[in-house]
């Protein structure tokens, strides 16, 4: 399993990660090695199996939908890089008209 540079760039795009050229080259090589190692799983016959579930007892957990106390707005916004009028402030989401 050997990844190409454009595959690495595609994964970084999906993961919303800005990588340097040096990082792309290094990850291409390292991820290829790890995926090659993982190839050995393909040899295990699992055709008869369902996927594992996360929990030992795996009950379906539901709780009553009752309103309760939550964090104060001022506490929620305290860690925001930028906030305004009780909201998170971000740069434009959509491209601006030229």
């Amino acid at each position, binding site marked *: 399993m050997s*990844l190409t540079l454009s595959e*690495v760039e595609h*994964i*970084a795009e*999906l*993961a*919303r*990660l*800005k*990588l340097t050229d040096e*990082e792309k080259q*290094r*990850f291409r090589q*390292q*991820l290829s*090695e*790890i*995926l090659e*190692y*993982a190839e*050995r*799983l*393909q040899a*295990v016959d*699992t055709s008869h*199996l*369902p*996927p*594992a579930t*996360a*929990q*030992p*007892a795996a*009950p379906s*957990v539901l*709780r009553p939908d009752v309103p309760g106390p939550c*964090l*104060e707005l001022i*506490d*929620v916004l*305290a*860690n*925001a*890089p*930028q906030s305004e009028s009780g909201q*998170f402030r*971000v*740069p*434009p*989401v959509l*491209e601006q008209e030229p």
Partner: protein
Amino acid sequence: MTGLTELGVYQSLEALERGDCSSRELTLAFLERSQRLEPEMHAYITPTPELALQMAEAADQRRRAWKRDAAPSQALPGLLGLPVALKDVLTLKGVRCTCGSRILENFVPPFTGTAVQRLLDAGVVVTGKTNMDEFAMGSSTENSGYGPTRNPWDLTRVPGGSSGGSAAAVAGRMVPAALGTDTGGSVRQPASFCGVTGIKPTYGRVSRYGLVAFGSSLDTVGVLAHSAEDAALIFTHLAGYDLRDATSLDVPVPHMALRLQEGNLNGLRVGVPEEYFINGIQPEVEACIRQAIEVLHGLGAEIKPVSLPHTAEALPVYYLIAPAEASANLARYDGVRYGLREPADSLQEVFFNSRGKGFGPEVKRRIMLGTYALSAGYYDAYYGQAQRVRTLIRDDFTQAFQAVDVIAAPVAPSTAFRLGEHGDDPLAMYLEDVFTLPANLAGVPGLAFPVGFDLQGLPVGMQLMGAHFREDLLFKVGHAYQLATDWHTRSPALA
């Protein structure tokens, strides 16, 4: 009173109860030692000495009031005045929580997680937030964004990871006990490398509300301390159902009063899995484990070979599932609501730039790996296949626990390695986890404790694994072993 920093959990609580020392004196002793050792060890990311002294004084006040009261209506909290350190992945309201990452350098959590709250309710004094691999991804604490922690037994070596700061702080007697987390061995492996006792509970046993998420089907909150009985006492306070964690399980937690138990193991069946004694294991590690199994035999246990045939598959399974879950969990670090924001002209660029700058190399690598394993066209071959093989690993344990009560095995193939030894070779680092990953994939509990030293004087750790919810049995066996041996009482020769 001299030698306060020699005290473990029970000893500290007994000294406080007898009035041999106050919590303030005890806490000060640990803080002073920490301050002296920190420049070399770097066990903490954020020490909280002022908070600790405030909490200690409050604990002393409470104890004095209780003693003055002729007929107190309730008992004192079980851990009142005990200094404890917290891995910097658990939130404590008002104290910054970095997770070892620069992306959370200035994050001050607005709430306290359940595990921490339970300890606060039990009366502990928080000495600080300990160092860790960034987002708990690593086996050496070298991946911390704040510099590595060093092993108190040899400062040129790693303490293990990712709870390396917690393990080093306990081993260096900077604190009697600490919380850690274990997603793929992050409590047990550093416990082994630093010669302390560490419990990785059953999945779902300890609430993860307020634990920064890494691998949600694997993450557990555990304890590092000097002995099985010390870890058991803290675990008893920590464990239990929590409405705020959907994966928390409502199973009763027995109080583990090990002090009253005898040290014989008559009738106990100990399984020894051949798959854990592979080529490449350090000979002294194997010798120490075999010797420790003999000790258990001498205490009355029956030793039986067992097979966990899919052990070798645990590594590739884990390194697909954990990164996949991490890539989803870490999507939240987008520079919008909290954490680092790199200024940019568009929101898209904020995402890319903040994550590109804020995450370290191992975290980026795992996000990439996980994203790939989950991406269209590869999902079934990688993530799907890994999940199915995980079922086989769990079935191995289910079968084994029909024949034996506990499984004894090495924690890691070798003792603590040198800082920088694995350089920029992630796969070599992942191989360090080969013996700890299966318990996480199966959700079973594991207890690691010291069973000897190698020729260089580095601690060797053994782990006992048990069936779901049988932490009590692991503690009992660990305690019996520690009554018969004194490895757990050894301390590194630090200045």
